[in-house]
Each structure stands twice: as C-alpha cells, then as structure tokens.
C-alpha cells in the first residue's frame, strides 16, 4: 500500500530524469481509454443479459401451467376437480383458470383473430403460482393424473433450462472479452514501455553510471505508464457510462443495459485494473531491458 502511494505521489526529482514523450504518452492514454470503453460496454451487456435472463427464469419458475384434456363434455367437472386438488396442495399460492379470451389471445399469433374457439375442442389452461417453498411438481402431477387422466402439468423447466444456459454463456463471453482486453492492454503497454526505454537508452546509461539502482530507473517509467493507463481508463469508463445513458431505448431492451447494485463496482474497478496491468507490464519490460546493460 505504501509502495502504491509512493508510486502515485512520486518523487518529482526522480520523475524528471526521464524526458516526457508526447506521442507515446498520448497513444497510451488513447488506447487505454478505448479498451476501458469496450470493457465497460461488454460488461454492461453481459451483466444485463444475465440479469434479464435471471428475471425471466425466475418468473418462469414461479408460474406453472396446468393443461386439462380437451374434452368438451367433462370440461367443467374436470376444471372444478383440478382446482379443488390444487387448493389442497401445499406450496401453491394461487390458481386461476384462463378465460376464453385469454386463451384466444394466446392462440392468435398462430391462428389469427377469427378463430371460433367455442366450436373447437381447446384444452383448458390453469395458471399456477407457486408459494415459498414451492409444491413438488412430480407429486402434484401424480395426484392430478389419478383423478383426471391426460392432465399435463408444465412447470416450464423445458423453457427455463436453455434460457439459463444461454445466459450463462453470455456471461462467459463477457468475462472472456474482459480477459482479452486486459491482455491487449498488457501487450500495448509492454510495446510502449520497450519503445520508451529504447528511446531513452542514453538516459538509462547515465543513470546506471552514476549509481542508480534498477528499481529507481524502472520506477520512473512504471509510474508514468501506470498513471497514463489509469487516467486513460477513467476517461474511457466515463465515456462508456455516458453512452449507456443516452442509448436509445430499443423496445425496452436497452433500458436494461447498464449497471445496478453491486455491478457498479466494475466501472470503479476497470481503471484500477488497467493501472495494475500497466504497472506489472512496464515493470517486467523495464527489468528485462535493464538486464541487458551493465
């Protein structure tokens, strides 16, 4: 911690021994800003995709659908029986038989608006909202089947599982993108640090001749690149957050994109991570370079 503070506060005298290099400095800040920008966008997308998927999955998990056999003669009796069973089942919060209009609305995308529902044998649907703790779906199915042959309890597992899997994969891609961005920041800083050390070979030689230790020389470079990467990343993060704010609300989806709660740690962490990556990359480059000299 003290080392880090020293690094940030710095020794102005020691800092001056390396001449300021305009173009490398600006490019480092620029690339760091761009990378941080991309990292924030990738994180926002993957975090919010995960969040949306989680919410859908949760809604699906709470609600189940009961489908009664399409038998016009016994429909009313079966519905009454089913509701009775459901009412006496622990873990069921509420049940509601869908009205004809609702069922028609569900079918509309497939059959159009002029479907004569009353003349067609359509299975009656019942919406079941689970309680906390929820009922046991297999036990309920068994009890229902005993009374009403052909009844189907759909707890939406077939929808939920692929949704969760997809959300997990999106998250994974998000992390992979962050890792790749981190690796390219490290590569870019290493290149820049090597270029800077080569351009300052005479300075490094004189410093060695008058008795400077490697850490002293390395620190002058490390401090610069750590600060540049950190400052660039802050600029990139701020820009990304602004862009996320003004993103058009594309049918509600983009309204979800962003950070919330603990997710806000990331916009704060990215500049820190960029600085840490720059610190180690520059230090490794400087030490490797200095070893080649007397």
């Amino acid at each position: 911690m003290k080392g880090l503070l020293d690094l940030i506060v710095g020794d102005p005298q020691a800092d001056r021994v390396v001449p300021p290099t305009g173009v490398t400095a600006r490019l480092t800040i620029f690339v760091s800003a761009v990378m941080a920008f991309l990292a924030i966008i990738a994180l926002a997308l993957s975090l919010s995709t995960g969040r949306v998927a989680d919410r859908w999955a949760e809604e699906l998990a709470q609600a189940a659908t009961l489908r009664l056999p399409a038998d016009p003669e016994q429909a009313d009796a079966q519905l009454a029986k089913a509701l009775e069973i459901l009412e006496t089942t622990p873990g069921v919060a509420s049940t509601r038989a869908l009205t004809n209009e609702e069922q028609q609305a569900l079918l509309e995308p497939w059959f159009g608006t002029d479907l004569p529902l009353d003349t067609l044998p359509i299975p009656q649907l019942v919406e079941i909202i689970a309680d906390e703790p929820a009922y046991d779906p297999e036990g309920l199915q068994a009890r229902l089947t005993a009374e009403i042959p052909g009844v189907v309890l759909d707890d939406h597992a077939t929808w939920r599982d692929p949704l969760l899997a997809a959300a997990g994969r999106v998250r994974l891609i998000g992390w992979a993108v962050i890792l790749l961005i981190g690796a390219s920041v490290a590569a870019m800083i290493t290149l820049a640090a090597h270029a800077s050390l080569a351009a300052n070979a005479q300075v490094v030689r004189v410093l060695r001749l008058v008795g400077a230790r490697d850490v002293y020389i390395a620190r002058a470079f490390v401090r610069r690149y750590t600060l540049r990467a950190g400052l660039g990343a802050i600029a990139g993060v701020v820009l990304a957050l602004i862009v996320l704010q003004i993103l058009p609300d594309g049918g509600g989806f983009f309204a979800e994109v962003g950070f919330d709660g603990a997710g806000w740690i990331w916009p704060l962490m990215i500049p820190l991570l960029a600085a840490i990556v720059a610190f180690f990359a520059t230090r490794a480059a400087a030490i490797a370079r200095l070893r080649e000299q007397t």
Partner: protein
Amino acid sequence: MIELDNVSYGHNGTALFSQLSLTLAPGSFQFLTGPSGAGKTTLLRLCYADLRAQKGKTRLFGQDASTLDRDGVAMSRRRIGVVHQDCQFIDHLSVAENIALPLTVAGRVSEAAGNLKELLSWVGLGPQSGRLPPELSGGERQRAALARAVIMSPDVIIADEPTGNVDWEMSQRLLSLLVELNRMGKTVLIATHDLNIIRSLKSDVDARVLRLKDGQLTTAGSVL
C-alpha cells in the same frame, strides 16, 4: 580499494591486454598514460565495473566484481566518482541537475544544495548552471563532469582525460581540486596523455605514473 588481478580484456575478440594487474591503494594518486588506442579508457571502465574482465578478477572495495549483482554494482559506483572521456550527461536536465544526479539517484537530494553551489563556482560554471549540456563548450562539459564526479565525496575518483579540452590555467585549477581531495584521503586515478600535466603536479603530490602500451602496464617514473 580497486584491484585488477591478472585481468584480460579485448573488444570483439581481439585481446587488448592480458594478465594485467593493478592495485589502487587507499589514498593513492596515480596517472595512467599511454598512446591513443592503448586501452586506457577500457582499463578504467573495468575499474568501475562498466566492463567485466574476460579473465582474471576485479575487486571493488574487497568484493569480487563478478559476484556483485546489479544493485551491488550500483552501490559500488556510488563510491567511485567518474569523469568519462565522453562526459555522459542527460541532455534534457540542466547542468546543475546533471551535477547533482549522483545524489538524486541515491535519494540524498537534500544534501545537494550547499555542495552544488560551491562546486559550481569552483569549476566556474555558476552562470551556466541552468543551461542544458548540449549548449556547453567541450571544456565546460568536462568541468561539469568533474563536478558531478566529486559531488558525492566518493572514496575513489577516476578521471579519463579530464583536462583534454580546457586551457592550461583551468586544467591546473581542476587538478588542484583532485590533489586537494587526495589530501583528504581519496584515491585518485587520472588517465591522460599530457605529460606536462603530470610534470606540473609532481611537486604537489606523491603520484605513481603508469604507462599502458602494447598491452603491458609499467611504472614509468623514469620517463619524465
């Protein structure tokens, strides 16, 4: 202080000298002469571990230079003030900052102020202290290099042609500084091919004159 023991060295495979031995005793004063290209600068660079002996041993302050790590070399150099033949400055730092550099890198900046002013006026660089090294004349650069070499009050002072570009009066002034430091107990080694300088100092200091020629190091008192 510094000891070369049967040392061999050659640039790019061609041997410059072999089995050469030299001991700089504490408080001693020696001149190193020899024709241009004989290897004087090379020999001095071995003495401050800028080059490593290809055979034989170099000892700095009792420690085998080949066993010193990079920090060890840095620490040894803080005890050796060097005037390089090509001066070696950091061109974007002012003359004063360059002269104070050994203190700066050793974390002893606070000691610089008093010493620095005195030294600058001694070497006659007071008015030039804020200028950059590339703006200095050859002689001014040598004076600045000498000031930098002695600012740490090092145990050993190694000077490679420190008076090559200055007039006779200034060279006497610079050398008298080295003689003064030698009287305070510092070990001094000066490489020069100007025998007049050696003669002029003969009465002031008990100096050994070494001659490097054809890879051989001989004591050359009789030559003068």
